[in-house]
């Protein structure tokens, strides 16, 4: 990602790369297409190609469902893949 977009958007005079007549996002258009990220199957092991500082969620599939709605309710999810052990704790 081009850093100028972020530095420029502050509007400080010292940032010579700021061009007030151009849309701030113009550099990004064309730089990102949906092919970059959407519906990619190969992201595992390819994290170095992802922009840093963003959060990514593995794409969920409609599969491995609990056998009926009563089991789903008692487990708190209808997706077996989301029925995970709770390991929450504070980060102090």
């Amino acid at each position, binding site marked *: 990602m081009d850093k100028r977009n972020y530095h420029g958007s502050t509007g400080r005079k010292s940032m010579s790369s700021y061009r007030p007549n151009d849309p701030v996002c113009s550099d990004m258009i064309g730089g990102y297409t949906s092919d970059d990220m959407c519906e990619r199957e190969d992201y595992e092991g390819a994290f170095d190609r992802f922009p840093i500082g963003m959060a990514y969620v593995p794409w*969920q599939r*409609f599969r491995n*469902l609990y056998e*009926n*709605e009563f089991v*789903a*309710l008692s487990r708190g*999810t*209808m*997706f077996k893949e989301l029925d995970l052990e709770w390991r929450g704790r504070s980060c102090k």
Partner: protein
Amino acid sequence: MMDGNNRDKLFACIEATSFVCDELRLFLDTHPTDRAALDYWDRVSKVRNEAVREYTKCYGPIEWYRVENDDRWAWVEEPWPWEGRC
């Protein structure tokens, strides 16, 4: 007319199918063309609607926006949740 046992069963069915509808809604928000999820939605929401209609007919309204009145507001006739039901 159903007995109390059937009433509890019907209510449990509404609870469980409502939960699955919530789950499906969340999934479909991000997968709006997923055929299997859409088919499951059709099945479960149909059962839920049927169960709510049946329950409402036999025992009174459980969704305030479905209240059908004759000459009085039927919503307040059944016990409130803190009065031992639901």
